[in-house]
């Protein structure tokens, strides 16, 4: 079932506050539910939000330093099939440029590595310029444009024709939508500092029984199922070489 080829997923945006870490968290939960061995790197150095939610599998790195680049990319064949990198706001283009410089993008192009980018879009026109900039690095990569509605982004500033003109310039880019999550539910998961999956299962970070609201857990369960159906739609487990998504009982 597990392919030998390592997979790297970069989650990023050049704009802050668009929900990169939230999307990274849903990815880690998704792979965990599908029994795909995963590790994560949080580039929000020195204080990582992703590490707060997934401390066991997350390491904080500074992607601009050679030593941390080695930590990530020289260990891709260490046995873990998927590596998720949550790229700090404003660093996406630079991170991709670094990957090009170290030959990583060529390796992806050559099929030695599976490489996917989840580009989280903000509501402003600036995001469209980001798409154009990022797209230039995307040969050999799976490129996903993620419209994140979790914080009630309306995308109101977008003119559909403008968006389409950018979008259609990028070959094989795929649209992905993250729906809105009830504000109070989102807030409670933040306070609890646990993965969404543990919140749904009413467990603390150490797997002890917790006492989260049944209503809020229900909202998170429903929302997570919708997010995962988007990941299923793009056949994410197939992309990372782990075959068809097979989950136990996430609903």
């Amino acid at each position, binding site marked *: 079932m597990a392919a030998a080829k390592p997979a790297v997923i970069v989650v990023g945006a050049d704009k802050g506050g668009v929900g990169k870490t939230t999307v990274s968290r849903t990815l880690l939960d998704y792979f965990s539910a599908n029994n795909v061995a995963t590790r994560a790197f949080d580039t929000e150095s020195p204080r990582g939000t992703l590490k707060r939610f997934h401390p066991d599998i997350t390491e904080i790195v500074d992607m601009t330093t050679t030593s941390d680049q080695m930590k990530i990319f020289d260990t891709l064949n260490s046995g873990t099939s998927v590596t998720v990198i949550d790229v700090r706001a404003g660093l996406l283009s630079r991170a991709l440029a670094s990957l090009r410089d170290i030959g990583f993008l060529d390796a992806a192009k050559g099929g030695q590595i599976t490489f996917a980018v989840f580009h989280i879009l903000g509501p402003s026109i600036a995001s469209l310029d980001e798409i154009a900039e990022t797209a230039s690095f995307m040969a050999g990569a799976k490129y996903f444009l993620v419209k994140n509605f979790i914080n009630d982004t309306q995308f109101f500033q977008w003119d559909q024709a403008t968006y389409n003109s950018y979008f259609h310039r990028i070959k094989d880019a795929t649209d992905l939508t993250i729906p809105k999550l*009830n504000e109070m539910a989102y807030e409670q998961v933040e306070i609890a500092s646990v993965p969404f999956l543990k919140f749904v299962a009413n467990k603390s970070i150490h797997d002890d029984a917790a006492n989260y609201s049944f209503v809020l857990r*229900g909202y998170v369960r429903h929302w997570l199922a919708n997010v995962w159906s988007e990941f299923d739609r793009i056949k994410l487990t197939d992309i990372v070489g782990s075959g068809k998504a097979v989950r136990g009982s996430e609903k």
Partner: protein
Amino acid sequence: MPATPVYIICSPRPQVGKTLVARLLGEFLLLKNGRVAAFDINLKEPSLIDFLPDLTETADVIDTYGKMQLMDRIIVDDGLAKVIDLGFHAFDEFFKMSEQIGFLKEAARRNVAPIILFVADTDRVSARGHDTLRQQIPSSNLVVVDNEHVVRGELPPEMERGRVLRIPALPTFLKTYISRLTFSFTDYLRQERDSSTELHQWIRRNYTVFRDLELSLTMQRS
């Protein structure tokens, strides 16, 4: 151990007798079990708290906090039967939320038995509401209440398919009599010595119907 019942009395229409059914059921459960918890989700109609203030607390499903206050209470298997008088304005939001949070599945996991008492009417809004419930709720948990004072004739055929609980119509003067805020069905049974009066028989008949409903639900689960 028997499941903790949660009776949800509902309709997307006002003035169909929801509070009457909630009052009868609340008093029946109090008489039978010695305790009951009732929740009133009515803002725009005469409501349960006016009739049974000692048993009832108000609740709402307008915002997430209100939903938490209500649902986190009724999902508990504590052996205490619960009655919810769900106002027509809260019908859509309540069942939308129930579906989203997986209320029925979680209830089954926790040994809680929701019983939806849908108070019927013959209009289009009721038909749509009933259809929504049929898609969402297993037939074993859904009971149509035929309040003869409202329906006055045959129920729509779709509503006749499952379990139906009939509330006979009372003459107008008796209806007015039981509509007084101080009226208690159980007190009436205790105080009225003549058991042949129409109201005495009406109350006893309705209590029997509720007892039969409880019994059949218990047997269904065992």
